[in-house]
């Protein structure tokens, strides 16, 4: 019996420590959770006089918008992973389908999946909790689009990594945005973070998106500087991520990886 249990333990150790992404996943969840809830508690403690309902409305808006990013990213990566899981990549890449056509198809698939997925959630939030995301007006569309674009940028990076390094990186598809969650200031303002982290966090478009959302809900204004920053950061990160994905397809062709992907 001991031998059999020992054999299984070695097998689980090989799985967990056999790949870098899996190893990282063991450590990052507890760290991310502590960081996130720590910053969140700090925000609440220092804003005791802020109305509970106002706070909840902001949080609920943030939950819905954060899910736009998550759905956008999953919609893209899962569409691509389906081809890997079904061992269909060689068939796909020997058709006259061009690499940029794959990129465009993934973007569109993600957009429609997100739209379909988010519609009932927004409806239920409106109906049951008297929550009015649409109070954000025309800027809601702006924030929605920019969050889904962040999702695409993350999605292309993850898809490229999986194409290049294999299935061990698939776990990132579920986890990667939770790594940036504490630094994206989704549920609390930027000034909740320590000063050094604030500088780094400002490089993320999500910070400016959620800061704008809060400003809109509380003061009904939006700064044009934030709009421009969001657009510039998104154009930069999305371009980089698409170039990275295309580069990984090229690398996969060089290394013969398109023929050897599968479940």
């Amino acid at each position, binding site marked *: 019996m001991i031998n059999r249990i020992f054999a299984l333990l070695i097998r689980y150790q090989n799985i967990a420590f056999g790949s870098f992404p899996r190893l990282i996943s063991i450590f990052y969840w507890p760290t991310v959770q502590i960081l996130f809830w720590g910053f969140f508690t700090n925000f609440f403690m220092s804003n005791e006089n802020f109305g509970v309902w106002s706070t909840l409305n902001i949080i609920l808006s943030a939950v819905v918008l954060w899910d736009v990013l998550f759905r956008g990213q999953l919609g893209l990566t899962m569409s691509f992973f*389906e*081809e890997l*899981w*079904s*061992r*269909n990549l*060689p*068939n*796909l*890449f*020997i*058709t*006259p*389908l*061009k690499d940029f056509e794959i990129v465009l198809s993934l973007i569109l698939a993600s957009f429609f999946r997100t739209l379909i997925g988010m519609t009932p959630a927004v409806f239920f939030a409106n109906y049951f909790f008297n929550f009015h995301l649409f109070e954000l007006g025309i800027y809601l569309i702006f924030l929605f689009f920019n969050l889904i674009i962040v999702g695409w940028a993350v999605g292309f990076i993850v898809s490229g990594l999986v194409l290049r390094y294999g299935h061990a990186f698939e776990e990132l598809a579920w986890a990667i945005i939770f790594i940036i969650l504490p630094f994206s200031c989704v549920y609390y303002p930027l000034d909740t973070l320590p000063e050094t982290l604030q500088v780094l966090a400002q490089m993320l478009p999500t910070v400016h998106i959620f800061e704008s959302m809060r400003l809109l809900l509380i003061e009904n204004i939006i700064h044009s500087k934030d709009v421009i920053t969001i657009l510039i950061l998104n154009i930069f990160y999305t371009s980089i991520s698409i170039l990275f994905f295309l580069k990984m397809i*090229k690398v996969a*062709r*060089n*290394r*013969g990886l*398109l*023929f050897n992907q599968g479940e």
Partner: protein
Amino acid sequence: MVKSSIEINKLSKNYGDSQVIKDITFKLPQEGIYGILGKNGAGKTTLLAMLMGLVTPTSGDINIFGKSLKYKKYEILKDINFQSPYVELPKKMTVLQNLYFYARLYDVKNYELVINNISSELRINELLNKNYGSLSSGQKTRVNLCKSLLNNPKLLLLDEPTASLDISTSEFIRNYIINFQKKNKSTIVITSHDLVEIELMCSYLIILNKGNIFFEGDIKSLIKKNNYRSLKEFFLKND
């Protein structure tokens, strides 16, 4: 002068320090069924993958129907197709959905009619509404073959086309491929470990050994010249 379907010039492929295809040069004429043989690791799959643009060569040129694969890849890919038992179609889609999907990718005109005709010929009509993932290996092979014929390819690459098929279905598929080639005057390249199959179907053969061309030529003359009774005997004596 006989036109070439495939023209390979000093083709090499390295994976790191390992050279899997070593500076090979050959030409295959248009129209005909040609075999590529070799032991495991000889470089057959890599060669096929390079012919389809799935693997980028380290050096050398590939010309297909007189066009450079490097510069006219997407133009060439319209006229190529491929089937392998090791490459599958999306499992969660029905056979018909899969065939529609690929027909659209190849921009096939009147694809409903084309699919109907090929699936009738390959006797897979009763599978069309089944999920691809639920099919047996033999059924998948026939569906994959149907997919590979959708664009009426001028160059068809077949990797073990009768793997997982019973004897009678293998015979049926072999005859179907031979008739397809005659009817469409296409070029078919087959890799297989089934030497009888290669002997039955192919007129011309390339044998790879550790990335080099070990033999290239007519099968009958190879057997006759060396007084072998079959291709199998040749392989056993040269192992």
